């Protein structure tokens, strides 16, 4: 059988296929379809499929543009879900066995953005009517969660970020429900894993995603996902990101965060906070007890003082002290009085002494004046001048006529007496 047919090598077949696609029939083709995914770069790639069949097994066409970030063709305006038309040439790529439409023109036929915004608005209105947007409905996150569910991609950085943050907080067990959080199948995966997690006794469910495409958030604006979150009896934390356009999931969840790290930090207190609070409790307990002891010690001292002041011994001692005090006061008074008398005597003595001195001085003066007055009558003065008293027969001779020759007279001097015989006058 094989021998009858022409056998081709892979290279030969590839060459034939490549030649087929170089046929002008495959040049300058225009194809339209829904953008299932878009990746901009040095070469930009778009996966086109039939509109509204993203979830089914729709045939895909890989479209490529050779331009830097697609700015030459306005590719940066194209979003997932847009319906676009692309004009270009088909090409076969032997190494990947793939067919690519190399585009040279792209045009948006129907913007997904406008469509999405309209759908989002309708969903929000519906949820609002049901009361699911009311912030009062939001359940509080338990302060000490024991077990939580994490819904995110198993291989994504988001899961590692969540785990890292959780390990720095009050210990808890976590269960990962691997979930597709963007692109194809995200909605189905989120719904399925949410339902599974809600059946368990988790304290909290975290639904999060890492960086990813900004444009591919449609699953978090989906009504079914929103209803599943809103009706959960278990508190749900969403960490979807992109705060400019809040996803509906964020609006209906019990708490939302921008990043997975921030979302995880809403669960439980940090270990430091827990340990600090425990230390605070210990200090408060100790201080209260020490205060109590100090108060009791003060009370005891007060009682002892009161008791001591009321004892008979204290009273006797107090009386004795009073008597002693009085005695001392009496002594002091007596001493003061004595001092006063002594001072009076001293004053009298001083006065008397000065009076006496005055009297003596006065008497001395008077004596001196008498003496001065008597001085002329002092016999010794005459003697000093060589005068002497002459007595005859004991009678003072005051005149020469009282004497005769040869009369014996007695001459009296201050230092003695002498006898003399009166002789005839020459």
């Amino acid at each position: 059988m094989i021998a009858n047919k022409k056998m081709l090598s892979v290279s030969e077949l590839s060459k034939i296929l490549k030649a087929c696609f170089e046929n002008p029939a495959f040049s300058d083709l225009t194809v339209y379809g829904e953008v299932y995914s878009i990746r901009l770069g040095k070469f930009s790639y778009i996966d086109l499929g039939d509109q509204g069949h993203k979830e089914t097994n729709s045939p895909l066409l890989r479209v490529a543009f050779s331009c830097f970030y697609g700015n030459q063709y306005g590719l940066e305006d194209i979003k997932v879900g847009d319906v676009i038309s692309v004009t270009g040439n088909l090409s076969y790529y032997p190494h990947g066995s793939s067919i690519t439409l190399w585009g040279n023109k792209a045009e948006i036929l129907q913007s997904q953005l406008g469509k999405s915004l309209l759908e989002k608005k309708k969903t929000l209105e519906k949820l609002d009517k049901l009361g699911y947007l009311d912030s009062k409905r939001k359940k509080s996150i338990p302060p000490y969660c024991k077990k939580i569910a994490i819904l995110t991609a198993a291989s994504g950085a988001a899961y590692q970020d969540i785990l890292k943050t959780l390990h720095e907080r009050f210990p808890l067990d976590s269960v990962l429900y691997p979930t597709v959080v963007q692109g194809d199948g995200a909605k189905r995966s989120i719904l399925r894993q949410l339902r599974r997690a809600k059946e368990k006794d988790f304290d909290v469910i975290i639904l999060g995603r890492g960086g990813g495409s900004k444009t591919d958030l449609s699953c978090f604006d989906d009504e079914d996902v929103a209803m599943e979150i809103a009706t959960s009896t278990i508190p749900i934390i969403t960490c979807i990101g992109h705060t400019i356009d809040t996803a509906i999931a964020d609006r209906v969840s019990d708490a939302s965060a921008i990043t997975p790290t921030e979302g995880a930090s809403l669960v439980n207190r940090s270990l430091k906070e827990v340990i600090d609070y425990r230390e605070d409790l210990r200090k408060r307990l100790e201080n209260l007890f020490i205060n109590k002891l100090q108060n009791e010690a003060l009370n005891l001292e007060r009682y002892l003082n009161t008791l001591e002041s009321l004892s008979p011994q204290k009273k006797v001692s107090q009386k004795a002290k009073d008597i002693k005090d009085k005695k001392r006061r009496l002594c002091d008074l007596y001493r003061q009085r004595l001092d006063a008398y002594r001072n009076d005597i001293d004053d009298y003595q001083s006065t008397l002494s000065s009076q006496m001195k005055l009297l003596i001085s006065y008497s001395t003066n008077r004596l001196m004046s008498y003496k001065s007055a008597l001085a002329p009558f002092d016999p010794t003065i005459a003697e000093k001048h060589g005068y002497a008293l002459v007595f005859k027969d004991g009678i003072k001779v005051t005149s020469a006529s009282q004497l005769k020759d040869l009369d014996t007279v007695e001459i009296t001097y201050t230092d003695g007496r002498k006898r003399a015989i009166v002789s005839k006058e020459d």
Partner: protein
Amino acid sequence: MDIVILTKEQLNELSYEELEKETEKVIRTLSDSSIGLDTASRLYAYGNEILSAMTDRLDGLMKSVEDKVETE
């Protein structure tokens, strides 16, 4: 004193959060100036016992943390 002193076994059955609340209750009661010294002594010893239980609990929990993956 409207506080019931739990045994060590009873304390072991409480969660960390409940132990924390029990300590707060002890502190509130101890703050009441009308309680006597004997009661205060008992409460102080009880408070320290709860704090020790909290430390043990925290250490135990940190060792037993489990990160599981629920496969489909």
